[in-house]
């Protein structure tokens, strides 16, 4: 540009009449560009990486929703399964924690997906989309889900194996003496049936 000797239209003190052709030429060029784009300004195309992240987030969102539904069902099943009040309280507490984690994951994913990656930036100027790694978010959710399920199954097994004798006792206010008494009643009845 330093070697460009073409007189600039704004050199010196041009009048409005002198600049008018320049403005007309620029306006015509812009109009041609807009027409070539179909009459609309050019759209911002997200990068392939951002698109992939969005898809991964959606997939984890669906999985989170599935885990949320299953955890609610599991909590209800546990309530009907065991009658011990302490086991119930602890298992329901676990399920509530798990439901909160799954819900938060879903809400976070939805809020990220609803935002345009080119409008939202954090304080460092990075796009909001790039801050959240979908796989780390999903892996975190999956690990929480696994821990929640494993803990619930562990509780069920404990409540089943701590009974005396055979079978799973589902009686209100069951204690050791009541269990023994019930088993003895059943065995007595079986042996004397006629």
């Amino acid at each position, binding site marked *: 540009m330093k070697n460009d000797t073409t007189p600039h239209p704004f050199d010196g003190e041009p009048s409005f009449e002198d600049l008018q052709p320049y403005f007309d030429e620029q306006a015509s060029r812009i109009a041609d560009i807009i027409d070539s784009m179909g009459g609309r300004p050019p759209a911002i195309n997200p990068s392939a990486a951002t698109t992939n992240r969005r898809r991964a987030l959606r997939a984890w969102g669906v999985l989170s929703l599935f885990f949320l539904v299953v955890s609610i069902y599991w909590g209800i099943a546990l309530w009907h399964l065991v009658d011990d009040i302490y086991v119930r309280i602890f298992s329901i507490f676990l399920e509530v924690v798990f439901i909160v984690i799954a819900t938060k994951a879903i809400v976070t994913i939805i809020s990220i997906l609803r935002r345009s990656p080119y409008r939202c930036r954090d304080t460092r100027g990075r796009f909001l989309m790039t801050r959240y790694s979908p796989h780390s978010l999903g892996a975190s959710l999956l690990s929480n889900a696994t821990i929640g399920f494993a803990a619930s199954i562990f509780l069920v097994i404990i409540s089943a194996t701590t009974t005396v004798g055979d079978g799973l006792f589902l009686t209100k206010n069951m204690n050791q003496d009541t269990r023994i008494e019930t088993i003895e009643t059943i065995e007595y*009845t079986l042996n004397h049936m006629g």
Partner: protein
Amino acid sequence: MKRPWIITIIICLLLIGGGIFVIRWPRTVPFGQCSEVYRKYAGMEGVKASFVKDFYINDTLCVDVTVLVAADTSGWNTLKNDFCLPVLDSVTQRKIDSGKDLVFMAIRKKGNCCETADLDDTECDVRATSFLNRTICLFHVKSLKERSIVEHYSLDISINNSKKK
């Protein structure tokens, strides 16, 4: 990008397979609920109710059992009325009063304490009543084989004991 979907599909298949496993072999995973009889008598005054899921009759068979124990005379009268227990004759009553227990067995339709089950009813309740102890045990069987094993349990024990001698 495909990995999350692969993981999702694998987990879904595992969960669906687990669900089929639970439905196909319900006794393996204790998802069953208490019996209706237990729920009816659980909070009743004068009756102590217990429910045992998967009580092992022998090494291979396990059944659900509801145990009802009358705590007092009014509870026993309630059970006698609800289960249509027979009125004992004087001879039988004297034996019981003398301390000799008689455990009466009856096969009743599932969910109906008074109606006798048919011979080909697969799901029914084997009711065993001890008049001396004022207890009723309901064995909730789900097949003719289970029914037969429970019915002939004491007989099988006697035969085995006599063989050992």
